[in-house]
């Protein structure tokens, strides 16, 4: 893997003095800080000092949580779809029903339904397509009595797709809605 290297940020401004013919030494004010930390230019234009931000991910595990118990159907979180379809198939009905029961008996629980697509097509358009699938699962939950206030539908589009797919079985793994509880 290519290791990103921090470019020294000493170059703060392109301090360039231009003179037209004939060539004579130009008097140039030195605004270069020469330091290795990010700094801003005085006029804000052409600034090359870029400050990096790192976002730390965090995950918590709770062995006693039914949502995380591998023997509990609530640990099943993936609902798969046919190509170009947002219909929730019968084989995934038990999973949807289990989550509906849990949400009705845990009114403080909130769930995010994350729609996904395969990688074919553009990112933002796929984001919208994935949204359709998450809305389809939401409607299924609604019909089972779950309130809108407990459900948020979002999409990852193709961002979580396995991009090494060569066949339909693999593509299908990418066309899914993931059920994620708030705080997970």
């Amino acid at each position, binding site marked *: *893997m*290519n290791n*990103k*290297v*921090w*470019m*020294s*940020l*000493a*170059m703060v401004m*392109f*301090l*360039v003095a*231009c*003179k*037209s*013919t*004939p*060539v004579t*030494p*130009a008097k140039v004010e*030195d605004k*270069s800080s*020469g330091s290795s930390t*990010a*700094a*801003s230019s005085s006029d*804000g*234009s*052409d*600034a*090359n000092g*870029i*400050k*990096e*931000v*790192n*976002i730390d*991910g965090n995950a918590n595990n709770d062995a006693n949580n039914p949502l995380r118990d591998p023997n509990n159907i609530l640990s099943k979180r993936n609902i798969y779809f046919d190509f170009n379809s947002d219909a929730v198939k019968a084989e995934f009905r038990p999973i949807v029903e289990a989550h509906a029961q849990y949400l009705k008996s845990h009114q403080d629980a909130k769930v*995010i339904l*994350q729609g996904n697509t395969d990688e074919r*097509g*553009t*990112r*933002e*358009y796929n*984001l*919208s397509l994935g*949204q359709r699938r998450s809305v389809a699962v939401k409607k299924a939950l609604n019909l089972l009595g779950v309130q*809108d206030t407990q*459900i*948020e*539908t*979002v*999409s*990852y589009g193709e*961002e*979580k797709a396995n*991009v*090494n797919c060569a066949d339909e079985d693999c593509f299908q793994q990418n066309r899914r809605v993931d059920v994620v509880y708030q705080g997970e």
Partner: protein
Amino acid sequence: MKVFNQHMLALLFLVASIVTSLQANAALEIEISGGGAQQIPVAILPFAEPAGISSKDNLHEIIAADLKRSGLFRVLETRGMANLPTAVSQVKYAEWSALQAQAMTVGHVESLGGGRLKVTFQLLDVLKQTQLIGMDYQIAPTQIRATAHKIADAIYEKLTGQRGDFSSRIAYINKIGKRYTLQVSDADGYNAQNVVSSNEPIISPAWSPDGTKMAYVSFEKKKPIVYVQSLTTGDRKILANYKGNNSAPAWSPDGSKLAIVLTYGANSQIYTISADGGDLRQVTKSNAIDTEPAFSPDGKFIYFTSDRGGRPQIYKVSAGGGDATRVTFEGAYNVSPRFSPDGRYLAYIRNDGGKFRVALQDLSNGQVQLLSEGAQDESPSFSPNGRVILYATKVRGKGSLAAVSSDGRVRQRLSESGGDVREPAWAPMAK
């Protein structure tokens, strides 16, 4: 096909008795194919450098690479020449007219002490035997590359009459392993710097018109949220975190507001929001997917992708809302509209028989030209002077960047070794 900048190398400058060491990251490798029929033949001669300076960033090589990439120049081989002058007084014009050079450069670097350098160069008209440009630059050694780009810009402007944009920057998302990083680099791929990184996806980077801020979508909170981040301070603020998806930020030309896409638990629709996060207004109202907004350069219209007609096509709507009208009619799948800076052309992605390719539509007459080969091209983005369109492509299953001249004649590939690079966005040029 020629390969440039193959390796990432550390620079070592020995100036006077001071040793300055820094790392440069030649992240992207550039391959050029094709070429224009009427390229200007130029000779870019090596710069004379004071003893003790050892630079892997040779000014003349950077300048030559810039000019070649534009597709408008044929950079002549000078290695076989008996004399390689570094000042005007040394130039024997007959030798260079024999090489069929129209223009040539000579230059030298002097050490000013205190770690400063002076770069002097002249652009000469070989046929008229006159000087076209003479400039000098007093710089720190870290500014060698930037200075080379400035010189290339000056040569480009003098010989083509158009503004050069080699000094501009690009942004893109680089996925390395499982980590997503928004990076900014020089237009030639060097000097890559991290803007923000996360273990969750980051998509849809968009430069503010003044080039000081970037809007993007981060999934760090397990859903797409639009952030705006200052490049200089690193300050990042949530621009839009409404229920459902928040995505596809696009700045208005005056920077006062952005178009975004929200779902509120239903289908994607386009809204505008002021740059400080207030004044949310719905622009499109449909039962279809409306996404990928782009302001026209005059700020009056928002062009966007919609499948309201059954398949995704590009439509336009007044920036204040109202009825949308269809813009693309050829092809069954046209998405990701992006304007040329002058507003004359619209670049977008067309699914051309299973191949996703960059298309260019002349808005004055509706004519469309397919510019890229495909098959998985995405995210077109114009260079500041409109001459080149940068886009994302796939090579052996891995994302990389490519560029094509707007006349379709010159193609280049910029690929980062190791990373999976996507969603390029060319920065606007400082006015």
